[in-house]
């Protein structure tokens, strides 16, 4: 399974034509303790770059963008019920939504693991 990243600190894990999307460990550290999450409903469709989910800590609020174009298969109800999962396991149990991709070739423009690490190194 490939894992790719965006410059907005989201990760995408592709399994067939379904991508699981979440925010990276770096992103959750920057936010601090997450207190609220809103995830999209199954069936809703998003264009690449559209606001698909919301994540809030006490001091910051941020949108989670659809990293690719597609239809939502599932939003993660577990993080809605317990937002702390986003902090404790951001790249596992703390995933945000799964989407069926319209154009898997969009993945080619994403950062791979090495490129994302490089980005983090630049941010210090």
């Amino acid at each position, binding site marked *: 399974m490939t894992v790719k990243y965006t410059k907005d600190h989201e990760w995408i894990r592709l399994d067939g034509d379904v991508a699981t999307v979440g925010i990276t460990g770096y992103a959750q550290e920057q936010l*601090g*303790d997450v*207190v*609220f999450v809103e995830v999209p409903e199954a069936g809703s469709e998003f264009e690449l770059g559209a606001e698909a989910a919301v994540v*809030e*800590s*006490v*001091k*910051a*609020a941020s949108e989670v963008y659809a990293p690719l174009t597609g239809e939502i298969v599932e939003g993660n109800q577990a993080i809605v019920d317990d*937002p*702390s999962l986003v902090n404790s396991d951001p790249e596992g149990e703390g995933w945000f939504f799964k989407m069926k991709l319209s154009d898997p070739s969009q993945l080619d423009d994403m950062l791979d693991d090495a490129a994302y690490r490089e980005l983090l190194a630049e941010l210090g």
Partner: protein
Amino acid sequence: MAAATVGDSFADRHIGPRRDEIDSMLDVLGVSSLDELVSKTVPPSILKPGGYEAAPMSEAQALARLRAMADRNVIAKSMIGMGYSGCHTPPVILRNVLENPGWYTAYTPYQAEISQGRMEALMNYQQTIIDLTGMELANSSLLDEGTAAAEAMTLMHRVGKAKGDSLFVDARCHPQTISVIETRAAPLGIPVVVGDPFTDLQSGLGETYYGIVLQYPATDGAIRDFRAVTEQAHEAGALVTVAADLLSLVLLTPPGEWGADIVVGSAQRFGVPMGYGGPHAAFMAAKDAFKRSLPGRLIGLSIDSRGKPAYRMALQTREQHIRREKATSNICTAQVLLANIAGMYAVYHGPDGLTRIAQQVQRLTAALAAGLKAAGVSLANDSFFDTLTAGLGDKAAADEVIARARAENINLRDFGDGRVGISLDETTDAADIAAVLSAFGAPGASVDMDAPGGIPADLARTSAFMEHPVFHSHRSETAMMRYLNKLEGKDLALNRAMIPLGSCTMKLNAAAEMIPITWPEFGQIHPFAPADQVQGYKEMIDDLERMLCEITGFDAVSLQPNAGSQGEYAGLLVIRAYHLARGDSERNICLIPSSAHGTNPASAVMAGMKVVVVACDDHGNVDVADLKAKAEANKDNLAALMVTYPSTHGVFEEAIEEICEIVHSNGGQVYMDGANLQAMVGLCRPGTFGPDVSHMNLHKTFCIPHGGGGPGVGPIGVKSHLAPYLPSNPVVASGGDETVGAVSAAPWGSASILPISWTYIAMMGGEGLIRATQMGILNANYIAKKLAGTYDCLYTGKHGFVAHECILDTRPLKDEYGITVDDIAKRLIDYGFHAPTMSWPVAGTLMVEPTESEPKEELDRFIEAMIAIAEEAKKVGAGDWPADDNPLVNAPHTVDVVTANEWAHAYSREQAAFPVPGLYQAKYWSPVGRVDNVYGDRHVVCTCPPLEAYQDAAE
């Protein structure tokens, strides 16, 4: 009049440092005089002292002058209604809250630990609103009923799912509410249709209208059953807002019980004087599902470091200081002092007391209705709570009745079309009813206090309200006095210590300035009272407008905006109207530097503008090259630049004139955010160096107290080309000829607190104002210099000086010792201080603004505390104390923790509570340990906690 003798003037009392201390402070800075300091702080091209030249008055002279003005106001029995009612402020609340600096000098409760008292009071207010409206959630106040209804308009838009994009407004809403909604809707492109909800909503719900706004009871007094309308709206996916009268809800089925989605209104008649329009607290109650979209501040319950209940402001991510252009509203300052008075009025009267008051009002209204009918007067409404509307047929007949009532010193409402309105309140008695009957041509008619009717049987309230013990426990004056004192004692206000909040200007609110606001001649005046009864107000307002024009260099002033954020919004509306009048309908880009207050982008969005962010350079100044590029790129649609001056970084930017010139040459107008006007008064005038419009925070620079989070007054000053567009009022002639409309409900906003600023300016005189500004700059630079080396000042001007505030870099303590800015802020509580502004405008830093009013002794005490804290941090770094058990991370220390039998910490109890000897003289104990923000936002509770919550925690 000759100037008061030196050493005896008010200015000498207002300014903290003594004259013999100033030289030593100047020595610390290496300058020889205040003039030299100023010449090295303010750019020479804009430094032009003067403008306002009047000699100072003494306190006695100013009060006598104001008394003469007050005496020209006529206190009549107001029966005008329209959302403003006479009421009795219980004297125990008047003396212990409204006239008490422990309540009125506090700041917004951002630092939760030292604000527990007023947050408990605000919880009582929220609970009162929740219970009376029958809703699930209420915020802790908005600015007035009109703006609350306008906020409901946008809230329904955010949360609604209907297709329609128009708003339907009940024609029987108060006229000023309709005006404020229309003003707010225009730039957002929301079409507003005003009509009869029973006949004009046969079609269009959902499809056309996403929401409706109703008034309950109607502005003419009728109580209408909206159940069917509400049901139809919901079936069509539209939302329903109800503007309601709070006292009527004691007797009426609350809107929450018949399906309202949002309920707004004014809490004025709960003990707050009418004050010629304000300030009063408005409320907004809503369904719980809307809580993340609600505008304004919300007090919530959380726990502290001991696991005990503690209050805090909840869900702050909704607000402008975090969300900026995506915020739910631009509101920041609310009406805390007035909300607390209203909440305490409810606490003091309890549900039975409120019921008695409401029943008395209703029975008198019924008696009046019976008397009028017996006299052959036709009434427009046969259902009523406190208001009747009589149809006299023609205007001449109505005028005659109104004139006869006026002769009896009673003001009735003139609809202008042959209808006359009569509104009763808790101050009305049988003699007033007899006088009204006489005015209607029925002298000597009997007043039947047992007259039936008024409230439709199926709209009579059946549910209980205010069952929480707090509404049953403080009913004797002794109990109430002690409750108020207990809450006050939990909080840290200016009567206890300096509140060095950068950008907030927590200066002295002198007693002489505060005295006039509770004079009945200012308090008991209805905002729509006839002109001949408000001559004193007019004189004071005209004089204050003149003073503000002279001080700022602007040509005209509008006092209508009720807060700085409203001033921003009003100023941008004026700019928008100016462009539209010139046919520039495409000008909608607003340039905003990245360092701006969060309100700026939030206000720009409300004014229908698109925000383009301008970068700042490494010194924190506006990046002029970036500004130029963006202004030129948008030259065909540039509307405005919003620029704070001196900058939010506390520096007089040298390039300000060039910045204004760039914007003007590209067709834009310059809006100056006046948050930092404090640094300029008397030294330079924004109206002379480029800005076209600016707001002034009278609650910062001009001494109106912060009230624990409001009231505020945010007038705007404009150059003459913008004067035609100034805000107006639909009832009272005011504002410009081509006005943008009403931005708030009352013509002169919060008129009753304007005497505070008038008195301050009059007592300081031109020279005194200059000296205050100089001393504000001296105090800030003194702190910056004394702390240099321990905490470096992040930004300074060309000669190394700051303006009236300084940003202290506390980040090295985090990097080197792991001590966060939060730890420092909370540890300052143990030292008896309110923390400076935290993490704004630069994350991880503290911004300090001492103001001119702080004595040198207090500045030195603060400096001592800050240095002692740095020493403590070093010990953590050196390993003397563990990173997770030291006086900083455990701060603030409560008395129960320090005095417990068990003490298992790595430092002493004395170190915890009395780290410097001065604390043995006066010690402020934090009532709670560090408040857990995360817990509070994960478990949102915004109602009064049951008493068991405290018992459980104690066990």
